[in-house]
Structure formats: structure tokens, C-alpha cells
């Protein structure tokens, strides 16, 4: 081989420059790293929640706090409503990934259909969350507010709640629970809300034929990443607030 083709050989590896070593489009890499930073924010919030819970002598029992199905049953159905919310969000993640798949085949009609389904799922989740917040608010929980001690007692393990000396501890951890619940699910709900808005925007762009003219549906993939991330965060919120 002559020296020129040897030089050429050197330049063909992924990291020798002149190409994207990860073969990922710029906007997609930036979405990934935005999501990484967002994951750190959510991790910090959840780690703080865990640390508080671990520190406190007692903590509200999730099965006693979350046991209503708004409009159907006021108590005695732990996890059912949040199970529905989890199902809705996983389902909307599936419709999103089906939209991405349809985008690969450049089938505009299918992308529009699956995007509409995703947006409906997002609104359903937000509606459920609004009901959940309203319910807790009616019970007396809010940022800086907890129910009166007689009411508050019902959310703790009976063996703890029956001892009068535990009242101060129940007030402190009840308040921490309320603050962190509304902050973390609120921050997540805000992400869902912005996700729905972005989904609406790219639905409009798809209908207008913007991606068809561009020749690719990469934007659907990027927004899809964000939407799956929102689902991913919910998986963790669900575990640490409702199950553990």
C-alpha cells in the first residue's frame, strides 16, 4: 500500500474526526443530556424524600393516605387509583413509541393518530393527578398545612398513632410528607403538562406536513425521548410514594 491510502485508513475510525462518533443527530444528543440533567434534579428530590423518611421516627402509611377512588369510593381501595394513573402513563408511552415507529416508515397518517392518542393519555393523567391533589387538599394536606391531629392520626400505623407522646413526631413527618408530595408530584405534573404542550406542537407540525417536507420524523423521536422520560420518572415516584 502507498502512504496516501494508509493515511486514509487512519481517518476512518469513529473517533478520528469528520463524523459523528455516536451517529446520533445533534438535537437528539442535546435532548439526551437535557434529560440526564433533569434526571439528576428528580433524583435529588427523591433522595431528599428518602432521607427525610429514613430520618423520621414515623411516617404516614401510603396505604392509609391513598385509599380513595375519586367519585367512586372514599376509602378502602389503596393503590387502585394510582394504578390506573400508572397504566395510563405507560399506555401513552406505548402510543408515543408507536408514533416514532410510524415516523420511521414516514407514514404521516399513523403518526398523527398515535400522537393524538398520546396527547389524550397525557390529559387523562393530568386529570387524575388533579383529582388526587384535590382529594388530599380536602383532607387538609397542602404546602405548609396538615390536618388537625385527630384527623392526621388516621394516616399513621395504629400502634404509633395510639400513643399520645407520638403526636409531635406525627405532625413533623406529616408536614414533611405533604410538602414533598406536592413538590415532587407537582414538578412531575409540570413535566407532563409541558410534554403535552410539546406533543400538541409537533402534532400540528406533522399535520402541516413539516416533517414530510424535511424528509424525516426525527423531531417525533426527540419529543418521544422526553415523553418516555416523564414516564420513567413516574415509575420512580410511584415506587417511593405509594409502594415503599
Amino acid at each position: 500500500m502507498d502512504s496516501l491510502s494508509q493515511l486514509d485508513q487512519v481517518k476512518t475510525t469513529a473517533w478520528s474526526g469528520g463524523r459523528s462518533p455516536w451517529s446520533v443527530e445533534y438535537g437528539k444528543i442535546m435532548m439526551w443530556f437535557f434529560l440526564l440533567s433533569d434526571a439528576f434534579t428528580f433524583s435529588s428530590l427523591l433522595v431528599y424524600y428518602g432521607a427525610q423518611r429514613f430520618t423520621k421516627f414515623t411516617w404516614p402509611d401510603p396505604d392509609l393516605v391513598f385509599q380513595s377512588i375519586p367519585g367512586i369510593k372514599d376509602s378502602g381501595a389503596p393503590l387502585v387509583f394510582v394504578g390506573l394513573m400508572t397504566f395510563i402513563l405507560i399506555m401513552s408511552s406505548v402510543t408515543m413509541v408507536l408514533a416514532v415507529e410510524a415516523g420511521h416508515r414516514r407514514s404521516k397518517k399513523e403518526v398523527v393518530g398515535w400522537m393524538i392518542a398520546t396527547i389524550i393519555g397525557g390529559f387523562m393523567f393530568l386529570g387524575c393527578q388533579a383529582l388526587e391533589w384535590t382529594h388530599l387538599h380536602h383532607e387538609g394536606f397542602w404546602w405548609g398545612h396538615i390536618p388537625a391531629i385527630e384527623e392526621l392520626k388516621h394516616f399513621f400505623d395504629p400502634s404509633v398513632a395510639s400513643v399520645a407522646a407520638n403526636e409531635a413526631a406525627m405532625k413533623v413527618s406529616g408536614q414533611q410528607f405533604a410538602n414533598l408530595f406536592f413538590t415532587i408530584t407537582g414538578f412531575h405534573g409540570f413535566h407532563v403538562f409541558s410534554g403535552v404542550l410539546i406533543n400538541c406542537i409537533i402534532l400540528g407540525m406533522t399535520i402541516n406536513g413539516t416533517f414530510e417536507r424535511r424528509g424525516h420524523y426525527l423531531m417525533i423521536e426527540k419529543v418521544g425521548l422526553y415523553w418516555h422520560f416523564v414516564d420513567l420518572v413516574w415509575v420512580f415516584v410511584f415506587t417511593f410514594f405509594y409502594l415503599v
Partner: protein
Amino acid sequence: MSEHNIHTTEEHGHEEHAGLDKKKIWQVFGILLVITIIEFIIALVIIPGHYMSQHVGNFVYIALTLLKAFYIVAYFMHLKYEKLGLQLSLTVTFIFILYFITLMLIEGGYLHLHMSAAA
């Protein structure tokens, strides 16, 4: 020659992007659904029936949650089909979170021992 190579890598990249077909999507959905149902069975039947302590249950929940996270990130977010460099840069970074969790557990354990009487 080098241009030719770049061209083939890109084509290969596009092939990989098409790696998730409808069948696989519904399969992953099924796995996520089954894991969630297992979590509900643990929460509503196994722990109340004292077949498992809450303490052990918590570890099971966290393991199942990480498993669900794997399926969402690997398949729905397509990370399994990306290049190793991107995979590593997005996952290894969570060492900082593990470090943070460890710190807060140690700190929380200390506070739990020394503050439980007051609050």
C-alpha cells in the same frame, strides 16, 4: 475510500434505528404491565398477608422499579441500539447519584439515632 466508509456506517446506523418493530413494542409493554401487576400483588396480598416483611418488600420494589426503568430506557428510549459511547456517558454518570444516596443514608441514619426523641 474514506467517504465510502462513512456512507456505509450511516446506512448501518439507519438500519439499527429501525430495530424496534410493533411486535417488540407490545412485548415491552406486556413486560412493564406484568412487573406493575407483580408490584400490586406484593402490596395488596403478599405484605398484608405477612408472607413477606415490609422491609424485604421495599428491596423487591426497588429491584422491580430498576427493571422497569431498564426496559423503558433500553427499548422505548432506544438506548440499547445506540453506540456504546453514548450508553456509557448516560449511565456511568449515575455514580454521582449512588454516591449521593449513600451519603444521605449515612446522614439519615445518624439523624435518626440522635433526633428521634425530639422529632
